[in-house]
């Protein structure tokens, strides 16, 4: 058995989820996990291989023509071929936008079990017990997976911590280079361009020390002014979860989560946000998280440091009232 990790590109080299996965798998005994091989596609890791020292046993760098590096049709073909030729094995990837798409595509090509959004893994020889969230994070399920012929497992961002791997930190990772093959050429899709978000004229929520973040619990856009008033009085900025953007109540530049920004303020005040995984991965690095939600079972309370069970439309005026009274006195 071999363990593979797809090394997803990030602005500074390697996506943090990749490092989290590598840290966790590296701790599993070699007899169970086999050799741990990273798969990097394209040139994004060129000259940055040392970031993987101690994290993996070998790096497979696959050459692709310019323009194909972000084509998921191409990447899924490459990953399937690399696993077949070096396997059988378990392919791990992050449950990121790219990983959400690649995991099932590669799993279908390989004909192996696909487990998405894994938050916990207990791997013993040919079997694993995997846990994943369902129902907006309100419930967990455990799955028994037969790994005899391999599997594809995508891991929820932030579920595992990047720590404890220091052995071999100074030892360079051996690199195997794989030249481009025409069989990997995209037949159905063409990436025409990548569109970077423009923040012109907008506040950058990633720079905020205090974020007052609002979710679907807002109920109506007419309730936004009081939230903005609170953010202003606390000296913070306003941010939101995905439904608020979908409903057109706030612009996408305010969105926190897997599709939006990753934020790490001193205080993140989550108002009427249920706390689905796609939102949590964008804010769980905040120093203090305070959640206000009328649903005592809201998953946000599993990641928050402090919780208040209340209707935000009644709680926020109380907060504002006290702030204004404190200013007066």
């Amino acid at each position, binding site marked *: 058995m071999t363990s593979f990790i797809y090394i997803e590109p990030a602005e500074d080299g390697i996506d943090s989820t990749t490092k989290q996965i590598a840290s966790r798998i590296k701790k599993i005994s070699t007899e169970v996990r086999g050799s741990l091989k990273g798969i990097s596609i394209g040139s994004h890791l060129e000259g940055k291989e040392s970031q993987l020292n101690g994290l993996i046993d070998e790096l497979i760098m696959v050459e692709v023509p310019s323009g194909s590096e972000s084509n998921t049709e191409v990447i899924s073909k490459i990953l399937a071929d690399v696993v077949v030729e070096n396997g059988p094995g378990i392919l791990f990837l992050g449950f990121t936008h790219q990983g959400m798409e690649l995991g*099932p595509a590669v799993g279908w090509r390989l004909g192996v079990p696909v487990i998405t959004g894994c938050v916990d893994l207990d791997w013993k020889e040919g079997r694993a017990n995997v846990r994943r969230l369902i*129902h907006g994070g309100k419930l967990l*399920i455990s799955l028994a997976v037969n790994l005899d012929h391999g599997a594809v497992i995508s891991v929820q961002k932030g579920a595992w911590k990047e720590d404890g791997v220091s052995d071999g930190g100074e030892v360079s990772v051996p690199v195997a280079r794989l030249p481009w093959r025409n069989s990997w050429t995209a037949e159905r899709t063409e990436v*025409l361009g990548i569109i970077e978000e423009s923040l012109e004229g907008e506040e950058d929520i990633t720079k905020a020390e*205090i974020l007052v973040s609002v979710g679907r619990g807002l109920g109506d856009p007419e309730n936004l002014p009081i939230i903005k008033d609170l953010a202003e009085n606390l000296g913070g900025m306003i941010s939101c979860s995905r*439904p608020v953007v979908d409903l057109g109540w706030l612009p996408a530049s305010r969105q926190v989560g897997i599709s939006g920004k990753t934020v790490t303020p001193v205080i993140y005040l989550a108002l009427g946000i249920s706390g689905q995984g796609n939102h949590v991965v964008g804010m769980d690095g905040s120093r203090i998280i305070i959640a206000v939600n009328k649903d005592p079972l809201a998953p946000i309370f599993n990641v928050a440091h402090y919780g208040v069970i209340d209707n935000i439309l009644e709680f926020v005026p*109380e907060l504002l009232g006290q702030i204004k009274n404190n200013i007066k006195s």
Partner: protein
Amino acid sequence: MRIAVCCKGVPVDTNLESIHIVNGDIHFRDTELYINEFDAYALEAAIALKNSYGAETVALTLGPLRALEVLYIALAKGIDRVLRIDGDTNLPELIASGLIPALREIDPQLILVGVQSEDWMGGEVGIYLSQALHMGLAYAVIEICELNDTHIRVKKEIGGGRKAEVSLRLPAVLSVQSGIQPLRYVSMMKRKKARNNPIKSWGKLDKEIARQTIAGMMAYEVKEVFLPSKEGHAEMITGDRSEKATKVLEIFAKAV
């Protein structure tokens, strides 16, 4: 141009009592089903294409009789025709296996699905369909820019606020992100009217045959459903509303 929209019925209630594990699969009992919100966005996108390009639209669902409600909503929103495949499963591989024969018969140029389901939260089904039917795929589509007889051009999210513009050769599968079109309210009157349409079962998912056909992928089973551990749960601030607000402001004062 024919567009198929795959819609899932998801349970109204989220509670442990309604979830039963049967042969490694999840079944929901004693709860109504409503349309998965992400699939509702896919329906809206299909209807927008129908209005712009004159496309014929077909909605399909795999589920028990209770899942008919999903199709009534589709009809009420303006989908031309609907069909239900009889089956009860929440494993994405089996859902895809049940949809594939119907989709082969419908022979659409475009298949739309929601980017994920509210209950399983995986997003696998659209991807499996694209692989099985040898179609191109765009995942997390937020805008359909252009459609012609041979290609479709879309914008899709790639994470961190970035987007990619992608061209796909038809036929293709689009996994549609929420917010692609505004969700329109469907009046009770329209839903009642839709219920007057008899909807025949298109066929039945034979889970055993499906499991054998994709035996390698089915080498897993659901063993247990449970509530997340209280470990790591927030310290709850109690008291009356005024006391709770005071305590929250004290946390702010200490931290900043």
